[in-house]
């Protein structure tokens, strides 16, 4: 049967493969979380399904290529440039497209799909067709009892954890975060209480864009880059935020890790094709049992 191993292994080999698959799955899961966080924030506050999220992720990755590789900026300065530009882009897009269409679901979908296609098409023209590559900042492998973990993935995962913590702090420990949650609960009431919903929404959009761009920046040395790279990211992100519960940061984290582990361990045991199906089967089961997602509100 295709999908099973060609030859049976001793149990210790299976255990090693599962341990290695689990480790890689967790690291990949954190990358998924990093990419999906901005999407869930924008949906949670603005109730916008931002199809252009993948392209912002792509722009962040390309930003690293051009600032760090082409213009030789220090990496810290590269991150600052990407952060500032993505914040500005988020503010601009919110003001130009999303604000006037708030509450009109279909029009917003069309607008964000259009934005996605425009950015991707311009990307092919501006960045060319050749894959771009960013040299690894951290090379080498860390081994834990036979389980090998690439250093650059460990660093990216650590950054992901820090960004999740910062987002939590922003949403649950600041006044702005309180305003965001108020708008998420009931925008009309929030407005009556004096919250400037437009400004808070613009900020949420900017932060969401910045998270996507930073995710792209940290993923850039791990993968190769091209203007179409956002597509895979957006598909995976949608899967994760739907299963996690739309708008739930904790749900996004759980779903991201779950998808990463299922893909990896499932891939190791059953083969990549079967693992792909396994992810969707588990996700369907989750949604049947909890239609609002793992931690979503009914």
């Amino acid at each position, binding site marked *: 049967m295709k999908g099973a*191993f060609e030859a049976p292994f001793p149990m210790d080999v299976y255990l090693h493969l599962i341990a290695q*698959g689990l480790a890689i799955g967790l690291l990949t899961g954190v990358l998924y979380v990093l990419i999906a966080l901005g999407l869930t924030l924008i949906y949670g506050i603005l109730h916008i399904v931002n199809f252009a999220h993948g392209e912002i992720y792509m722009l962040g990755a390309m930003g690293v290529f051009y600032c760090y590789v082409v213009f030789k900026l220090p990496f810290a300065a590269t991150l600052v440039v990407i952060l500032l530009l993505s914040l500005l882009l988020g503010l601009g897009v919110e003001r130009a497209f999303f604000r006037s269409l708030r509450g009109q679901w279909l029009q917003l979908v069309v607008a964000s799909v259009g934005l996605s296609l425009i950015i991707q098409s311009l990307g092919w023209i501006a960045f060319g067709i050749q894959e771009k590559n*960013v040299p690894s900042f951290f090379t080498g492998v860390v081994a834990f009892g036979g389980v090998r973990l690439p250093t650059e993935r460990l660093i990216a995962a650590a950054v992901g954890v820090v960004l999740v913590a910062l987002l939590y702090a922003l949403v649950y420990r600041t006044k702005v975060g309180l305003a965001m949650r108020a708008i998420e609960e009931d925008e009309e009431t929030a407005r009556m209480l004096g919250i400037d919903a437009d400004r808070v929404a613009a900020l949420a959009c900017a932060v969401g864009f910045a998270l996507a761009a930073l995710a792209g920046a940290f993923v850039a040395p791990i993968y190769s880059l*091209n203007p179409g790279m956002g597509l895979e990211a957006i598909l995976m992100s949608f899967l994760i935020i739907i299963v996690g519960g739309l708008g739930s940061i904790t749900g996004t984290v759980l779903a991201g890790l779950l998808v990463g582990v299922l893909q990896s361990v499932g891939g190791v045991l059953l083969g990549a094709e079967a693992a792909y199906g396994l992810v969707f089967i588990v996700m369907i089961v989750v949604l049947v049992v909890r239609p609002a997602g793992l931690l979503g509100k009914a």
Partner: protein
Amino acid sequence: MRHPTLALVVLVALAVVGLPDGVHAQKSFKVGAIVPVSGPAAAFGLGVQRGLELAAEDVGVFTVAGEKYKLEVVTYDTVYAPDKTVAAINRAVYNDNVKYGVIIGAGVHPPILPIIRETGFLDFAFAAAGRQITNPDNPTAFRIMASSDQLYQTYAVAIAEKLGGKRIAFLGPNDELGKNDAKAIKAEVEKLKAKGVSFVGDEYYERGARDFGPALLRLIAQKPDIIDTDGSPTGSIALIAKQARELGYNGYFVNSTAVLEAKAISDIAGKAGENIIALRIWANPPTKLYTELAERHQKKYGEAAPGTLWETYGAARWLVDTIVKADTFDTKKVADALAGSTYAAHPFGAASWGGEKAYGIKRQIIMPIPAAILKNGKWEPFDVRSGKFE
């Protein structure tokens, strides 16, 4: 002021649309680039488009049946998807009256072959795989790149023997090309069974994938000496090499059909990219034309030439030569004339058509096929004898 302006507009309009046909210098000979120019396989398609554009510049004006023509490139984006390719060829043939074109993808060909057979569309198939496309039922389908069968039959055994590889595995795209290539390499490895060489596993990934960890873990557990990564583009192979080395694999990679970029592999994979062996890669330019095209492409498009450029350029020039000699655009007559012709000015060197024994029809391009190995970020010639493909 209003009247003189109006008169000027009318005059200009008349000048643009009102001139009789004979005043125009030449008619258009449309060649379709029915290829992906967006999505993950866009690099393949843009290479074809640009190969045709450069060929159009060099062909200039030519005469067929007493009329002057100029090659016009018409691009139809297929996104490398079968349904969109069907739509594209329908639009090309029935709306735009395009009878010739380059179509990329082994996976997109099955649903369009009936249209090609019905209309006599002359297809320059830029697709690896094998008999599915090239067979007597498809006399107007010419494969302008080396087929997987051709590459495996001429090189696989020799490479395995040269490297002393005993355990061979396959990791390729989950499509027609990947599945066909795995089948082809299994058949070749079977020939070496008596020498202790075995095929130890095959794994597949979705095109555009960037994480190969699980598939690689399964393959590496089988302790392969060589992992064949055919059908994978540069970016995928570089990531496969990088991730495989991270997981402890120290063997060789062999890639047959894709044209890989050494710098890109080194940039992505660093030292992990060493010992990738690739067919269809010229460590040293084979012809003066090859060098000139590389320089022209760099100047015109601001980047290195994509791997699909050369064969497209060569095929387009060969086609126009044949049409001029046959003095007709009838695709069936041109197909017959083309199959019986040779072409000395291909960027890879002298080319002809073969494949009669393997496919039952001479529609497979036969031309020099090089082998190279990546060392210190550069392709070096990989000295291995090649077999004959008939």
